[in-house]
């Protein structure tokens, strides 16, 4: 028993140490910095204050926070509604690897290239406008980019594989004969899906939800590149506080909020996974 314990520690220690030093300590520094006073030229002064948290209630920030929440909810909802049928169709398909490859290839392609592709399509001299102009359908360029809709479209585009992959994995493990059993017992197709399929793949849905909502909530590049002045999100505020305004405590306070939110999400995923295992719904 003792030997076993030692071996486990020997195997896991290198990674445990690495993540402690380069992940836990940096996050802890953020927690500490959020309670410190802002330094004159960036950095902090070692003096306890709650000023950073008070500054968060600045109406300008609250507005961005509210917008971020709204954009995240809408984009996540669209993503999940599209991803669920996709995961279902892929799991039932005979050509799973083929569909997986089709999802993974754009997913692995550099995200900046993918955002850039949308700029090339939507911008005032972009693909759509040039096409419509040359066909004579419109006389002047439409403004399709640098607004909220463009941000939501691109966020859905970037994050949809994150939702499809866990949904596919869970639905693939689902025993489809249960649906047939439900039908035999008189359930309609819709009823069978809502009462049998969806509850059984709950943990996959929660994973997909967290894995899309949190990255969208902390999005930085997409609102920066395809958003306008009125589509700034909290990620942009944090970066500006670090690189431009040099208010590290405020950036830390915002980061801490998102970290706490993510931690809750992780706990939710873990708990729902354990509940499902206990119920015996999934393998």
């Amino acid at each position: 028993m003792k030997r076993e314990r030692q071996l486990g520690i020997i195997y896991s220690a290198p990674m445990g140490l690495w993540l402690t030093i380069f992940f836990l300590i940096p996050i802890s520094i953020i927690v500490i910095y959020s309670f410190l006073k802002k330094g004159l030229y960036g950095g902090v002064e070692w003096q306890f204050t709650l000023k950073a948290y008070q500054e968060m209630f600045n109406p300008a920030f609250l507005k961005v926070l509210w917008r971020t929440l709204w954009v995240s909810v809408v984009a996540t909802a669209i993503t999940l509604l599209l991803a669920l049928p996709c995961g279902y169709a892929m799991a039932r398909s005979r050509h799973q690897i083929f569909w997986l490859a089709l999802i993974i290839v754009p997913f692995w392609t550099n995200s900046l290239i993918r955002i850039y592709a949308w700029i090339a399509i939507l911008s005032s001299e972009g693909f759509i406008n040039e096409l419509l102009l040359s066909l004579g359908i419109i006389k002047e360029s439409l403004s399709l980019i640098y607004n909220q809709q463009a941000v939501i479209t691109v966020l859905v585009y970037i994050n949809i594989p994150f939702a499809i992959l866990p949904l596919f994995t869970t639905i693939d493990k689902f025993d489809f004969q249960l649906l047939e059993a439900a039908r035999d017992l008189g359930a309609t197709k819709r009823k069978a899906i809502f009462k049998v399929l969806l509850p059984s793949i709950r943990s996959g849905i929660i994973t997909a939800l967290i894995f899309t909502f949190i990255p969208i909530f902390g999005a930085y590049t997409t609102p920066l590149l395809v958003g306008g002045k009125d589509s700034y999100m909290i990620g942009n505020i944090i970066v500006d506080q670090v690189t431009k305004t040099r208010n590290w405590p405020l950036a830390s306070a915002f980061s801490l909020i998102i970290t706490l939110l993510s931690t809750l999400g992780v706990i939710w995923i873990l708990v729902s996974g354990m509940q499902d295992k206990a119920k015996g719904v999934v393998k």
Partner: protein
Amino acid sequence: MSKKRPKLKPTTLVELPKETVGVYRPPRQQVFRDHRRFGFSNIVLVLVILFLFMPLFVVITYSFNASKGMRWTGFSLQWYYKLFFESRQLWRAFLNSFIIAITSSVVATILGSLAAIGIKWYRFKSRSYIQVISFLPMVLPEVIIGISMLIFFSAVKIPLGMFSIFVAHTTFNLPFVLLLVSARLDEFDFSIIEAARDLGATERQSLTKVVIPSIAPALLSSMLMAITMSLEDFVITFFVAGPGSTTLPLYVYSMIRYGVSPVVNALSLVLVLGIMVIALTFRRFLKTIAASS
């Protein structure tokens, strides 16, 4: 009929007596199969895949455009000429990205798979600590990881550059390696290790002669995934990069910041083709990769 027909398992939802299972065949053909090819979910899947590829197709098509903008003026390969022969900085950035991807994925694969072995097969005190700490970096937004690392590096006075990028990439790659290798170890029969030990193998021998050869595919696919994630990362790198350590995504960012750049169009085709080759080579592992991302 699908090629693998799931076995009917006893679950809490339906409980048929065992002897009926073999005899009773549910009328499955009529229920969910008849409209399958053009069913709602298949249509959504095809539309989503078109949605995923459409922007890439547009950009790649216009990489063969003779003029700079998005108005088609004729076929030309000039942007490819520019990309391959007149973009020294871009290839310099690519080399940086490549060096970081290889080093960080090797380190992450070694540390991550050792930890997976420790967590899967042994019980010890700090086990759950390691499990939680390796899960969080996967869900935390990149901005937060990037900023916390920037603040950390400046607090401990590590200069920003290739080394700090390497550290950051190894950190965000570790959890994915751990997950992928753990998934493989789930299928691994521990009694093989016991057999090896009974036959007199030391711990190190059983590791190098038994465990590593049999989980080699998982090691390979997690390294591959680590390489692609490292090559892909922009946000975290953006914070921890210093002068002279521009990576490919950072360079692309500087090119697209102010609009359409035909050289980036040409680069897109090269990158998409590269990813396609990788995905095809490793198609056997795509399902494991899907399960861990």
